[in-house]
Structure formats: structure tokens, C-alpha cells
């Protein structure tokens, strides 16, 4: 089943075309990497998929809902983790989870038990009552992800989720992502760490608003005769005009 479909989506801001006619599909349970340099149009594209902005032309569906006409349903069925791991610093760990669970309509009775299970899973029980402000960055990251999938959305959008975190923590974080994918949640992740591209089932690479490559990392490396995703990316990015 296709959890995300994009059909010729374009976004223009005045005379500037940020996203230029992109099309792709994402299957349920896939880990889909959305790569590209800064300014390539990744964030703009993701915002449209999240129902935050409307395409200038083209259409798309997320979780079966039209992103232009049914943005409210789209929002209710997705999770989102922002670049800044947006959590409320002056709330405790469990309070943050409760807040976001409530916003996404998780029934009150379920929130408590689910929080307990989640914290146990992460090994966080001791930090249950800690203010988020005092958590180290890696833990905030895991917490932010957990809050994003707390309500069991069909797809979760991760915007540069591993920024500023050490490699060991990054690996651990990807373990969490694998776990979520195994549980049927589709993962749509943007990143500019090319080694993380290797962890994805398929990746797309945006250059100047267009998708210049879309395939599994293995196939892409083969096609372009590259040793790793870094090389693949550089070969494509060299054509870029925006940077």
C-alpha cells in the first residue's frame, strides 16, 4: 500500500520555483530517505507533504488523504519530528509525552500505560520526572522521536533528526527507527549525513528543486559506479546551480 504519493508537485514563491515537478511513491513500512543539499527544496517539499503548505500545482496523498484538500486529516495521521527536537524544556519527560499524546487524540486512559512501556523500552524510567532542559542532546532526540510516534501514526516525518549528535548516539537512534519501521510505521527522513542514506530502503536526491535520483542505495551506487552514497551525492550535486 502506498502511504505517500506525490504527482508532479511544484511549489513556486513568486518567480522562484522551490520544488519543481517532483513525483514519487513510498510504500508502507519503508524507510525512505529524502536527501539533498541545503536550498535544494527538501524542506519545502516536506512541508507540503505534512499539510503545512499547499502545492502551486500537482497533487499528493499522505496516509490516503489529499495534501491539498484534506490537510487536516493528513496532520492527524502523521507524526513529525523537527530539526530542533522541539520539546518543551520546562516540562518533565512524561509531561511532554502526555502533551503530544493528548494533542494527537490518544485516549487519556492509554497515555499512562503507554508512557510507562515507552520509557521502559528506552531505558528512561529513571528520568521520568526530569525536566527536558536537563537532558543530554541524545536523549532529547530519542524522546522527540518517541513523542512523534506515540500516537502510532501511519507515517512519521523526520527533519534532519540526527543533527549535532555523536555517531554512537546516531546509531542508537537508527535502531529506534528500525524498530518503528518493523512495527509498520513508514519513515520519511531528510538528512545530509550520507552514511545514514545507507540505512534507508530507498533514497531520493533533490537538486535544484528536482529529483535527480530515486532508488535503493545499492542500485544507485552500482549505477553511478560509486563506493558510497557520498560519492553518489557529489556526482549529482555537482550539477547544482543553487549553491
Amino acid at each position: 500500500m502506498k502511504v505517500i504519493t506525490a504527482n508532479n508537485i511544484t511549489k513556486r514563491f513568486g518567480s522562484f520555483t522551490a520544488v519543481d515537478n517532483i513525483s514519487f511513491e513510498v510504500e508502507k513500512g519503508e524507510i525512505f530517505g529524502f536527501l539533498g543539499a541545503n536550498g535544494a527544496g527538501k524542506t519545502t517539499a516536506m512541508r507540503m507533504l505534512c499539510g503545512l503548505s499547499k502545492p502551486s500545482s500537482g497533487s499528493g496523498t499522505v496516509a490516503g488523504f489529499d495534501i491539498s484538500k484534506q490537510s487536516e486529516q493528513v496532520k492527524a495521521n502523521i507524526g513529525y519530528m523537527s530539526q530542533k527536537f522541539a520539546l518543551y524544556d520546562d516540562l518533565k519527560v512524561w509531561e511532554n509525552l502526555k502533551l503530544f499524546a493528548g494533542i494527537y487524540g490518544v485516549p487519556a486512559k492509554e497515555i499512562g500505560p503507554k508512557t510507562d512501556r515507552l520509557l521502559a523500552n528506552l531505558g528512561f524510567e529513571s528520568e521520568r520526572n526530569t525536566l527536558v532542559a536537563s537532558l543530554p542532546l541524545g536523549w532529547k532526540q530519542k524522546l522527540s522521536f518517541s513523542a512523534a510516534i506515540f500516537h502510532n501514526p501511519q507515517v512519521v516525518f523526520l527533519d534532519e533528526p540526527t543533527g549535532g549528535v555523536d555517531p554512537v548516539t546516531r546509531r542508537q537512534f537508527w535502531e529506534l527507527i528500525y524498530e518503528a519501521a518493523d512495527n509498520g510505521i513508514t519513515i520519511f527522513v531528510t538528512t545530509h549525513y550520507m552514511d545514514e542514506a545507507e540505512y534507508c530502503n530507498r533514497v531520493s536526491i533533490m537538486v535544484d528543486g528536482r529529483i535527480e535520483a530515486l532508488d535503493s542505495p545499492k542500485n544507485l551506487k552500482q549505477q553511478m559506479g560509486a563506493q558510497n552514497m557520498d560519492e553518489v551525492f557529489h556526482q549529482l550535486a555537482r550539477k547544482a546551480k543553487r549553491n
Partner: protein
Amino acid sequence: MIILLVLPIMMIILFGFGINTEVKNSKFAIYDPSNDVATQGIINKLNTSEYFTIAETVNNPSEIEQIFREGDVGFVLVFSENFYQNMLHTGEAQIQMITDGTDPNTANTLVNYAMALIGEYQRELMQISHIPFQIQPEVKLLYNPGMKGAYNTVPGVMGMVLMLICAMMTSVSIAREKELGTMEVLLVSPMKPFIIIISKMIPYFAISLINLASLLLLAVYVLHVPVNGSLVTLGLVSLLFIFVSLALGLMISTIVETQLVALLISGMVLMLPVILLSGLMFPIETMPLALQALAQVLPAKWFIEALRSVMIKGLGFSSIMKEVIVLSVMAFVLIAASFKRFKNRLE
């Protein structure tokens, strides 16, 4: 950036021109039962000076209070009967100056200028006629006979505090969410933007209600400022002003990206003009016209006026109609504009 450059300029204009305790063309009224050469002389002296202009003539002492209700006139000059005769025969003559005590600063200034002019007239007359006499002005402050400064400052401080809490706190709070990135997460969630906004405003609304109550209690029982008018009217107009201030905070938050800028704008751009121009410290009439016009744009100015009318003059709802309408329009415009901006951000 622009704020850092514009701010000093703004401050010097406000402080330089705003703090101007000179009086120009201040309107006054007269009650003159004598209508003789002396009274005419004094009236003329005041009228031809650049400081005063005669606005109306009162035929009946009972009309005097009505004049102050209308709020246009700064003071009323009352002559005793047979003014000139008294001067000639008894060597004394009485003049009474009645001013609006809700603003003791202005009252004081006007009285001083008037007395200086009357004194001048007295000297001129003595030179011409060589009759020794004394013109004794008696000063009467309506609504505030004790000339208590608190009558002036309390409404002013109430306006300032409510505006501060609501506008500054709301704008900083929303800006903080933007800065930390939590606003983005809220916008992606199923929560409607309208609910997000309301939920940011409610805590400050509640806090300002508590502030309003405590300020009033302190004003009445500790500072002995009266609430001569209806508490209901007072409450209603305060609620309206709180609403306007919240909307102002919301508007600011749609313009700024960071908390610091929100703080700067609400602190400097809002508070400073409010403190200087709302009539809290300095009488509006003594400011240059440009600044007087600027004062009209400040919601606080209208609220403070309405507060004075209700609390100290004891006037009813109909008297503050003008202020209520202006504040309502401001609230509507601010909310509509903020909503539009907020929605546009999403596109």
C-alpha cells in the same frame, strides 16, 4: 537591526518634545456675573496670550460641572459679583479657578500660568490707576480636592500594567515557541491555529484579571482612590482593554522571529510611548500636535481616559462611549490583521 537604529531617534523625539510642560492655547471657560472693565481686562489678558483661548461662557454655576464632563476645557475662571467695585472699595477682589483634579499635573500647570497672567494684569492696573488692591485667586480642584497625585497615577499605572502583561508577555510567549521550534510542531499537529492562539492568550488573560482586581483593591483601600462610578462599567472597559492588549501582543508575535525582538518591540515601542504620551506623566495638551496625534493611536490613552472618567469623575457608560468604540475598533482590527498574518504564514 532597524530597531537599534530607530529606537534612539524615537526616544529623543519623545523625551525632547513630549516632556514639554509649556502650555499653548489651552481652552478655558468663564463665569462672569460682573462683566465689568476689570473682569474684561483679565479675560482679555488670558485670551490674547498664547497660552489660553476662551472656549465658552457659562451663564450659570451649575453648568460648570458639565463643562468638565465634556473634558475639553482645562479650567473655569469664576469672578465674584461686582468685581471691579470690590477692587476699588475694599482693595480685594476674588477670582476662583476651577480645574480638573483628575489630572493634577495639568491642573497645576494651567493654574500657574493663569495666575502669572493675572498677576501681570494686576501690576499693569496698579501702575495706571495707582489703586492698591489684591486679586486673590482661589484654586479649586474638582474631583480631587486633596490634589492627590494618586488620582492621576493610578489609572495611568493600571493602563500601563495591563498593557505590559498582556502585550509583552503574549508576544514573547508566542515568539519563544517560534524560536524553540515548538510552534512548528504545533502547526503540524491536528490542533487548529485558532486554538493555539487562544491557548497562548488565556494564561495572560487570567493573570491580568487578577492584576486588575488587586490593583483596584490597593487603589481603593491603600491609596484611597475612589471608584465613584459603576464597578461594572469599570470592569467592562477594563476587559475590553485587556482584549486589545492581548491582540496587540498577538500582532507583534506575527511580526517577530525571536523573543528578544518581541521584548524590544513591546518594551520600547509600546511602553515608552505609553508612559510618555498617554497622559500618565505629562499632560497631552502641552505636547506638540504631532505627538498628540500619535497619542490618539495608543489604546492605553483611551483606556486611561475612560478609567479616569469612571473611577474619579464617577461618570457612566454613556460618557465613555467614545473610548469604548475606539477600543472596540482597535481590538477588531488587530485581531483580524493578526489572524490574516498567521494564516499566511502557513501557506
